């Protein structure tokens, strides 16, 4: 830290100064008040600056508190509580696939990545950024990403050498420190209490529009419903659509059961497998990128094969304003995705449903900037939606405020391309 050392720093922890800083932080960020007040301050000479553990204790070095101005300390409070609110220790453990799965160097890298996620958006607007706080830009990275994304983008090396002292404690990177008081120590919060505090904070942010930065709002929305990896979700939606009764494997009276011989006179149903027909309608309008389409299409082909759809039962239609013809997946690895203008998915639906025999499942890959059919189609529908934060392609210069219709309620919607790191 850059602040000059003032006076004799060998004394006990200046708790009043530390708590005045907490008060400052609460005034600057009222929506974090519950979390800040729930932190239990502990003096520790072994901590380099300030650190948290996963039981919501905040360890502070008396020396550091003494020589740091109150306004900087307030920033550190918010920084440390952000580690806990954003579950950085849990996410680090998940990234490392278990506690203790990596050595100190990798944990330091997690700490740095977590700091980058926090520091680029919590400061400013009445809260000072403490000197020495690492920003993504310091490592040559772009702002606004998640810890997991940063972790993929940098290594320890000359750029991070000056950060080796950085230590936000086990609350930031999941590795136990020797100063940690452990789960049974004084004033720790239990898992349920931690969830309750995070919930109160999230509720405070979502309940009062206008509070909190965009990042905090996003955190609050996702705190208790982390976005699942879209591949799993799309797979589950597709599998369940394809294997639900009426499609795929089910009992039928069309052929006698193997147990019929045991029960003379009774007609028992037998298990029959009818592979589902899946038609994929691909939105090839200019607003959807090729890489997005490619990855989603591969995924669907793999999933539909896994649920027993033979390749000749999976068809693909590329659709912009007018739908193309149904291409069986077996004919070409690369399906000609023609188009590029505006979208009208209604023609794609019509084309898919006009095929004989009709599909059991229609999968639509789109960015949603399109009119949807008025009525529910007579088969299961899964929509893979490429998220668009702002309407770009559907933007109408005569009506700039026009927002495209959301996907209809009868379709199962999976957002594709949301971060898989999970908060």
């Amino acid at each position: 830290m850059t602040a000059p050392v003032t006076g004799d720093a060998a004394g006990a922890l200046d708790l009043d100064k530390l708590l005045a800083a907490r008060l400052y932080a609460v005034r600057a960020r009222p929506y974090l008040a519950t979390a800040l007040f729930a932190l239990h301050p502990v003096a520790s000479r072994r901590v380099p600056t300030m650190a948290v553990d996963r039981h919501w204790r905040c360890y502070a070095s008396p020396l550091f508190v003494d020589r740091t101005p109150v306004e900087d300390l307030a920033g550190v409070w918010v920084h440390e509580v952000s580690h806990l609110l954003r579950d950085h220790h849990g996410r680090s453990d998940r990234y490392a696939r278990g506690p203790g799965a990596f050595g100190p160097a990798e944990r330091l890298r997690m700490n740095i990545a977590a700091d980058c996620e926090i520091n680029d958006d919590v400061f400013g607007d009445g809260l000072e950024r403490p000197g020495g706080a690492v920003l993504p830009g310091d490592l040559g990275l772009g702002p606004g990403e998640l810890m997991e994304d940063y972790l993929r983008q940098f290594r320890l090396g000359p750029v991070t050498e000056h950060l080796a002292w950085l230590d936000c404690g086990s609350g930031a990177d999941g590795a136990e420190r020797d100063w940690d008081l452990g789960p049974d120590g004084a004033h720790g919060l239990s898992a349920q209490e931690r969830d309750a505090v995070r919930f109160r904070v999230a509720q405070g942010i979502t309940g009062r529009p206008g509070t909190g930065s965009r990042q905090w709002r996003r955190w609050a929305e996702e705190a208790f419903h982390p976005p699942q990896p879209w591949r799993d979700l799309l797979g589950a939606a597709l599998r369940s659509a394809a294997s639900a009764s009426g499609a795929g494997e089910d009992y039928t009276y069309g052929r006698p059961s193997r147990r019929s011989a045991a029960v003379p006179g009774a007609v028992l149903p037998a298990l029959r497998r009818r592979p589902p027909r899946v038609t994929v309608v691909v939105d090839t309008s200019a607003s959807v990128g090729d890489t997005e389409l490619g990855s989603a299409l591969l995924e669907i082909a793999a999933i539909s094969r896994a649920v027993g759809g033979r390749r000749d039962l999976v068809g693909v239609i590329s659709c912009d304003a007018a739908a193309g013809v149904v291409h069986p997946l077996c004919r070409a690895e690369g399906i000609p995705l023609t188009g590029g203008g505006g979208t009208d998915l209604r023609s794609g639906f019509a084309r898919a449903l006009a095929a004989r025999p009709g599909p059991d499942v229609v999968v639509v890959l789109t960015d949603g900037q399109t009119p949807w059919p008025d009525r529910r189609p007579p088969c299961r529908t899964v929509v893979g939606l490429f998220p668009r934060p702002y309407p770009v392609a559907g933007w109408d210069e005569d009506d700039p405020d026009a927002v495209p219709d959301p996907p209809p309620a009868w379709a199962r919607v999976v957002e594709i391309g949301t971060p898989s790191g999970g908060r």
Partner: protein
Amino acid sequence: MPSYPSATPAGTLPGSVPQLDVAGELLALLRDSTTEPRPDDQLEALTLAVAADLPVLLWGEPGIGKTAALTQLATALDLPLTTVIASVHEPSDFSGLPVIGDDPAEQGIPMAPPDWAVRLVRAGRGLLFLDELSTAPPAVQAALLRVVLERRIGALTLPPGVRVVAAANPRSSAADGWELSPPLANRFVHLQWTHDHDVVVRGLGGTWPRATPPRLDPAKLPGAVAFARRAVCGLLTARPALVHRLPGSETRRGGAWPSPRSWEATIALIAFATAAGSSREVLSQLVRGTVGDGAGLELLASMDRMDLPDPETLLADPEGAELPERGDLRQAALDGVVAAVRARPDRARWDAAWALLVHALRTGAPDLVVVPATTLAALRQDDWDVPAAVEQLAGAVALSRTADRAAARAAAGAGR
């Protein structure tokens, strides 16, 4: 030319014990493990839900120890365990096999139940574990759900002494995605089954945990019911939107959600957990597994506030007041007291509140007192003198000034 011992029987070396016996000895050594008592929140939650006679659905990856847990549960409740692997059965195994008599038109066709069901009914009590619900074909699942929810197998009805638990793999790892429709999901208590790394390592080392089952305390029963009803009704009065809320997004599909039915189950579970003296962790698993995370967390948060000391009690005896240790709860308690004074302001209550703030300052962090003190000061009426106790709040005032000065410095710095 080498010679082979051809006279000895296969698998035995001359002059030694038969190999299978040695293998048996080795197996006995491997199976030799001890147990140690260890609190287990998952198992306690499961035991309470089963005791409350609510259908439980365990969600867990294959091989995570669900069956072992059920064995423990059966021992704890002293019930014989019947395990049925759903995926190897046909629907007629659960809805009953049609048996044709002499005159079907006259007598109808009875649906004969399988042998395990007959044994269960004859015993009158037992624990029925329906494993691998998610890998069974949809028609089998439909038949099974009738067993779980209506407790009927063919023409038989399971007696009240039989408890039913089902297990399923999470959607992401299920081989063929089966999921519960919202009406079915609403009837279950969903418990997430995970493994505890330490327990597994220690168990493989030879010592498995032995959970002590929760005991319901007969003396606590009426209080537990009153508490449970107060907790749920208090929340639903304040938040009517939570009474019924269908799951909207794909992520929440197949999980628990709030409805009058699941709230009723929640009341039962809170009452059971309270009567058993269970921890908040256990209650949290049960509540969130019944009405879902969102509504469950709101309920738990509002129960936290129910635990706060009553403002009137605090005002009646400010010197001897016991305030919560945790900072956020302590401030919530103090805010509650100030709100109580605001609601019915008079001189004595105002003075008592000041005395309480002084007491809070003496026993805890000073920054928590600042906001309540500011609000309380604003409630002063013209003919009320500032009480002497306020002098003792100087620490909090100094703290507040330090923060103010820092804010001014920061603002000046930003303006530079």
